[in-house]
Every structure is written in structure tokens, then in C-alpha cells.
């Protein structure tokens, strides 16, 4: 029966980000949540478990404040969680996150059969952690997958490429990153949340893990991507509709 690892990230809910006076990002009222894409990865792991049995392990790296995310992840079904936690594990770049996750997998979750990740994170959307993690572990990776199955020690996946769908097979263990339309993630109920508190969590501190690389990238600037368009609003009666169409004509848009 397969051991499936599902990775997730606790991210800023971007709809709460405000624009500061100088165009800087204002995070003062933000809330956090499990990255949308990772919810699909967790759900897919649970779907496979429902068919093949085995165990689903949730894995994340983050700051102590992300402890909330563990219960959230476990309420979505996984049996146990692994949490690489340190105040310095915030704002990591993909290379660092992948190195951390690889270290936890190697030391604490080997052997395993399949690793599932979201196609990218809700905040940086670099789409790197999955394939980088696979490279650290020396296993095959299949990205942008819309359908996945396990058959006779292999993972069979439909990956979406520019020309259509490529059906690929790889010997387990392997890593798969899933697209958001692969499933509809469950909404945990009260009972799921209660059960989640009783599930085992292994927290690993910085001292328990090998050192991670220094950042390779330097962020020189992070500014709000504002579209400076002053919206002219119109009503919906006939006169307003005509005024609207004339405005479009004036802009030579129609």
C-alpha cells in the first residue's frame, strides 16, 4: 500500500494585500491560508488513498506562525504531518524550500512511493519546488498533471502540454505536480477539524536539519502591479448604454 507525501505552503491570501502610498505592498491586514493549488494536491492524495489504501503524509516548511496550517492540512484528510519550523523559514525562495523538504523526506519519510505538490504556490507561483525537490531526491518528476493513477509500481499521469495531453509513466517513487482542475478539494467539517487535532505531527527545528543554501536570488523591488485606469462608470438604461458605446467608439475600440 502506497505512502503518499503531499506538500503544502501557508501563503498570504493575496486579496487582502493593499497598496501603500509609494506603491509598496501593505500586508498589515492580511490573512493566511493553505495555497489553493496545494489543496488540490492534498485532495488527490486522499483520492488515491481511498482506492489503494496506504498512508498520506502532509509536509510543509515555515515559520512558527504557520503552525495553524498543520491542523488545516490534517483536517483535509492526511494521517500525519511533518513540519520544518523556524523563524528563519519565512520568505524562502524555491531552492531553499525544496532543500528543506528534501532533507525532511530523506531523514524521516523514507521509503515513500509518491510525492504530490500543487503546480505552483499562491504567492510566488514560481512552480519550482516540485521539480527541484524531485531533483534533490533523484526521482522522476511529472509536472502540470490533470489525471494521475498508480499501477504496478508505476505512476501514470496525464500532463498538459502545449500540443495537448501527454500520457507518461514513471517508476515509483516519483513526484507529480497537479493542476487546479484535477479535483475539487473538500471543505473540512467540524468533525474533520476535531479529528485533525488528534493526529501526530513531527516538528523539526533548524538544528535537526542540515543547513539550507543561502538565497540565490535577490529581490530588488516588490511593488504593486497597479493598472492605472480610471474607470468611467455607466448605468444600465438605454441612454447610458449608448453613452457607453460612444465612449468605446471614441477610443476606437469598436
Amino acid at each position: 500500500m502506497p505512502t503518499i507525501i503531499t506538500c503544502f505552503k501557508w501563503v498570504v491570501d493575496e486579496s487582502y494585500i493593499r497598496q501603500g502610498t509609494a506603491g509598496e505592498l501593505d500586508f498589515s491586514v492580511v490573512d493566511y491560508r493553505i495555497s489553493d493549488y496545494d489543496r488540490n494536491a492534498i485532495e488527490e492524495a486522499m483520492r488515491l488513498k481511498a482506492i489503494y489504501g496506504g498512508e498520506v503524509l502532509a509536509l510543509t516548511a515555515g515559520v512558527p506562525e504557520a503552525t495553524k496550517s498543520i491542523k488545516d492540512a490534517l483536517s483535509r484528510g492526511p494521517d500525519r504531518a511533518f513540519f520544518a519550523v523556524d523563524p528563519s523559514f519565512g520568505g524562502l525562495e524555491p531552492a531553499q524550500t525544496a532543500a528543506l523538504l528534501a532533507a525532511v523526506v530523506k531523514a524521516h519519510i523514507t521509503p515513500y512511493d509518491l510525492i504530490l505538490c500543487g503546480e505552483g504556490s499562491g504567492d510566488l507561483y514560481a512552480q519550482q519546488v516540485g521539480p527541484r525537490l524531485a531533483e534533490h531526491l533523484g526521482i522522476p518528476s511529472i509536472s502540470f498533471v490533470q489525471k494521475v493513477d498508480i499501477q504496478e509500481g508505476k505512476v501514470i499521469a496525464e500532463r498538459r502540454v502545449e500540443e495537448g495531453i501527454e500520457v507518461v509513466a514513471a517508476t515509483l517513487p516519483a513526484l507529480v505536480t497537479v493542476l487546479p482542475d484535477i479535483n475539487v478539494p473538500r471543505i473540512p467539517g467540524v468533525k474533520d477539524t476535531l479529528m485533525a487535532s488528534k493526529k501526530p505531527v513531527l516538528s523539526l527545528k533548524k538544528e535537526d536539519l542540515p543547513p539550507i543554501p543561502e538565497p540565490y536570488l535577490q529581490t530588488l523591488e516588490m511593488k504593486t502591479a497597479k493598472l492605472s485606469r480610471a474607470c468611467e462608470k455607466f448605468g444600465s438604461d438605454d441612454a447610458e448604454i449608448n453613452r457607453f458605446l460612444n465612449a468605446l467608439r471614441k477610443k476606437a475600440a469598436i
Partner: protein
Amino acid sequence: MGGIWIVAEKKEHALELLSIGRFLGNKMGTNLSVFSWRDQDACFDYIAHGADEVLLPTPPAADQSIDVLLPVIAGEAQMHHPDAIFFSATARCKDLAARLAARLSAGLCSNCIGLSYDEGAKNIIMERLAYGGAAIQKVACRIRPVMATIPPGTFARGDSDTGRKGQCRELPAPPTSALKIIELKKRTREIKDITEARVIVAAGRGFEKQEDLTLVRQLADRLEGEIGCTRPVSEENRWLPVELCIGLSGVQVKPDLYFGLGVSGQVQHVTGIRNARVIAAVNKDENAPIFSVADLGIVGDIYDVVPKLLQALNKG
């Protein structure tokens, strides 16, 4: 050694990257190389478009995934120490780029939408979107090679100079892939590529049922445009093919007119319409975020407004 390297699956993408690569190469005084495994006869074209060297790995067999190129490119990089490697951000190449970056212990700027050279700092500056498109992040690499994946269509193809000189070099055959391609299901039905459409009418969550999308089709037809949609319409409702989904996880469009119907304007979608010349929208919620990024907006119910628009257009 050094140099700027281009890796792309398709010739048209390689040509776009050669154009920005040549620009940076001239500023940095370095050579430009391009990997070509599908179009072995494209050497002349690549050289005419700015390549100094065309590297020719043996094309993978039909059942081999392009991840077989990983050891080939990594081997070349460990031998020749490129200054930068730019990948076309197609699905397979994004995977390849991330794995190569991990193997070379290098940084990677994903989905880079702007490149420039800081002559003072002697560094390549890269721009990308973050937080679902709410922010623009400017990054530089602390170590070499500088790596980035660049979405197709980000840079325009340059002019061809048939007098340019360059060389082609064959690379060793790749090992066997860990991935086995069982089947490539090419798209059977022809789906419009809306990235070049002049007018796009986009359907959002405001539509109650699939049949109601005829309103979108009618308006698009009347305006001689194409239809597009937001992610929930294609991925949750599955009312339209994913190829028509505009936004961060879909396509980026640059029409003369983008017309959103029942589109709320979440950042992930708005990211895909940043480059539209005129943005118009109809939404019944006057506080919908789409109105803060639109040029013109009608506050009203799409079921009431769209028929009125069609009627007025047919009259005038």
C-alpha cells in the same frame, strides 16, 4: 567561456528568446547559443537571428520525455559555465529548467516578463509577477548562471540577418529517460488561439448556466472578436475549454478591446489582461474589483445589459 544560452521546444519561441538574448549579449559582450533538438535544420535561421552557436543534442525518441536533455545541458553548463540560461516557459521546459537549476545549485526566475542589464552592477535584472499578479517583483541572481523561464510571446522576434556567421555543434546522445511517454493525445478539435485576438469578450462567474454563454458569443460575433473566460468558468464549471481561460494559470492576452461580462476581477484573471488597450466590463456589483482596472464599466445585470448592448449595436 560564459555566454547566454537559449533552451526552447519550439522554433518560434527560440527566435523570440534569441532576440532578447542578442540584445543582452551585445551589452554584456558575450556569445549567444541556442539548443535545438526538434528542428535540426533550423541552424541557419537561428544564426541569422543572432545565435553564435547552435547546439544540437540528438533528438529524443518518440517515447522519451525531454527530461533526457537534463544531463546533456547540465554537462555542457558544468564544462562551459554560461552567464545565463533562458528557457521558453512551456510546460516541459519549466520542469526542465527547475530541475537544471537544482542540479547546478542556481537560482531561477520563473515566468519572467522583463529583462534588462544593469551596466553598473553588471547584472541581469528580471521582472516577474507575484501574489497572483498583484505585485511586480524585480530580482537579480547572486550567482551564475542567471536562469529564467520566459513565457512565449513576451519578447518580439528580431530581424533576420542572413549574412551573420555562426557554428553548429552536435552534442552527445542523451541517456534513457526516467519518464516513458505512452501517448501524446494531440488536440483534435481546433481551439482558437486568443492571444492574438483583436477583441475578446470574456465570460465570468456572473453567468448562471452554460446556455447563457450565447450572450457572450453573440457580443463577440457582433464585435468580430473571440471569447475568453475566467478560471471558474473553464475549470470549475467546465463550460469552456481551458485554452480560453485568461490569467495567471491561463493565457495572457493583448487585445485592442477586452470586454468582461460578469467578471469580478480577481487578480489572477486581471494579470492576463494587463496588456489590453481598452478594458470594458459589465458587472452588477459596483464594488467589483474589475471596475478599478477597467477604462469603462457598466454597473448592471449582464442579463439585462448584454441584450441592450446588442440591440444598440445593431441599430447604430
